């Protein structure tokens, strides 16, 4: 066989491999986008996952509608993938709001409900208080279930409107804040990133400083490096088990934000140590010598000259770490829980986006919603990557000429 033919065969294998890699990648991303993109909207991002039920207390007050009925009927904050408008909207003066009847259907449930579709300025609903006296921020989309003890169940919209209109004076309205969103998961994820980095970054950076600047090369350093490399290769479920046994049980931190963050911080440590070490090693010896020759101490040299030069490398470490935290699921499932709520304290549980995606796909069988979460995760990772790229460029001392 001539050399040329051999070359061409090898070349085509190389092209083929590249094409396969690229198309698999694009296919996966495309699949997730196509499946999930229909579900990603503002409500999805800003609503809590669970519905919330309130009793709202307010005073009835006659408020005339300031828009015409055409505009009112166009004012439809319905999610047409789950919701179909069956009746309305009809404006009710004594609560200063319009109500529609909507049939709601998703994978697990199907029901008819009365939804606020428009709130007039000055409406008594806007200054409604709950039983503790705190203001409830009633918005369009909220579901009305009863007023002054009269339930709306199985009624038509006209009947509901007449019940509401006949009320006067004090009103006690049962409202439901709709769920189905992932706001709490986004916030939990961001908390998780923040806390685990706060813990892991200083420890990792100081560890790397010890290894590159202080430790004499030899056995101990090699053992530490080997340990760090091994830790980096251990599957995260093992860390999750450790976190569960140690943080959750032994330290009695419960399944909580802090248990999850500390577990993830341990997962991050090897990554941060390795990349910071590499960054420190690339700082020219000449800078250290120059600084020491000016009578600076070793610590001054490290903090004023060496570390600033290593910032781009450390930023890479941060970037990799953020990716790890956002992508972590197995360890968090065991240590931070699957409760979709914004953690009120460090010691309350919360589920991150990945855990929520797992939960929704596995427990509810709702692949599309899980894919929608996947899209959000991808977008968050991309945004964080771009941000860290920009900061590391800004902080790069060698860029400023």
């Amino acid at each position: 066989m001539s050399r040329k033919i051999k070359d061409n065969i090898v070349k085509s294998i190389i092209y083929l491999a590249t094409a396969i890699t690229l198309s698999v990648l694009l296919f996966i991303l495309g699949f997730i986008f196509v499946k999930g993109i229909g579900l990603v909207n503002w409500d999805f991002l800003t609503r809590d996952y669970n519905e919330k039920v309130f009793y709202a207390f307010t005073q009835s007050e006659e408020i005339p509608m300031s828009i015409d009925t055409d505009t009112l009927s166009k004012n439809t904050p319905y999610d047409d993938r789950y919701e179909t408008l069956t009746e309305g909207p009809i404006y009710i003066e004594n609560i200063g709001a319009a109500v529609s009847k909507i049939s709601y259907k998703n994978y697990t449930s199907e029901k008819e409900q009365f939804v606020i579709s428009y709130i007039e300025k000055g409406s008594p609903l806007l200054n409604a208080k709950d039983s503790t006296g705190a203001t409830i921020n009633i918005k369009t989309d909220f579901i009305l279930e009863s007023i002054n003890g009269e339930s709306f169940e199985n009624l038509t919209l006209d009947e509901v409107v007449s019940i509401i209109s006949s009320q006067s004076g004090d009103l006690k309205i049962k409202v439901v804040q709709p769920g189905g969103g992932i706001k709490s998961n986004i916030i939990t994820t961001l908390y998780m990133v923040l806390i685990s980095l706060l813990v892991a970054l200083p420890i990792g950076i100081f560890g790397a400083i010890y290894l590159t600047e202080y430790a004499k090369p030899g056995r101990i350093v090699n053992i530490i490096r080997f340990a760090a490399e091994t830790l980096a290769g251990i599957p995260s479920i093992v860390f999750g088990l450790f976190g569960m046994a140690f943080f959750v049980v032994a330290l009695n931190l419960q399944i909580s934000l802090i248990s999850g963050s500390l577990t993830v911080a341990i997962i991050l440590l090897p990554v941060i140590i390795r990349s910071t070490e590499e960054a420190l090693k690339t700082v020219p010896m000449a800078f250290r010598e120059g600084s020491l020759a000016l009578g600076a101490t070793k610590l001054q040299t490290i903090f004023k000259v060496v570390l600033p030069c290593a910032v781009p490398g450390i930023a890479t470490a941060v970037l990799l770490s953020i990716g790890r935290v956002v992508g972590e699921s197995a360890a968090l499932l065991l240590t931070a829980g699957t409760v979709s709520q914004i953690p009120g304290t460090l010691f309350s549980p919360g589920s991150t986006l990945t855990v929520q995606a797992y939960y929704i796909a596995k427990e509810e069988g709702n692949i599309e919603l899980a894919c929608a979460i996947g899209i959000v995760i991808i977008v968050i990772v991309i945004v964080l990557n771009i941000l860290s790229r920009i900061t590391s460029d800004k902080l790069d001392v060698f860029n400023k000429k």
Partner: protein
Amino acid sequence: MDKKIKFNTKNLDLFYGDFQALKSINMEIGEKEVTAFIGPSGCGKSTFLRCLNRMNDLIDGVTIKGEILFDEKDINGDIDVINLRTRVGMVFQKPNPFPMSIYENIAYGPKCQGMKDKTQLDTLVKESLVKAALWEEVKDRLNKSALGLSGGQQQRLCIARTIAMNPEVILMDEPTSALDPIATAKIEDLMSSLKKDFTIIIVTHSMQQAGRISDKTAFFLMGEVIEFNETPIIFTNPNDKRTEDYITGRFG
């Protein structure tokens, strides 16, 4: 000679592991003179220079025997290393300004010693740059990065940075070997003007440079000082055959 002795080394041996890089060096270096070390590559002249402010401490596996007296005090015992380095400054072969602004580069040393006063720092920065003949070129860009300067300017900045510490001795390790002839000439001029105030010890590969700027010259070969004498004597009438061979270019 009534000149004060700044550095006095007695039977100085230096080993990199098992390899002996310096063999029993005895040398007296006078105050406010320019002393040049010449010799072929690997002869130990840079190693010896780096002994004088203990930069060899940074290298693993270096053992030093013998004594180095700085103002009659042992630098390996009686003087704290940080204190020593503030009094014995060093300029390196490759310009190594820190990746910060020109101002910060000069203010770095004094700040590390705890100088905080802004006006005091401002004057010091200006004085040092004027002494290093760099002020006119950089006075409008003090807050720009030092990495934007040319090689020659960077080296003068490194000299200015060293001067800012007001040291007694300035060690220069082939300070012009990475520079073009014009930048080299500027640095040589600078050295002649600095010798009024500072003791200068310079390692150089250029014999012309040693001849032009130094008062005394030491010729190193294989870790030994072959000859140490007034520069004119070394260059015109050396005592040792090997010195003559090196200077006339028969080897090296």
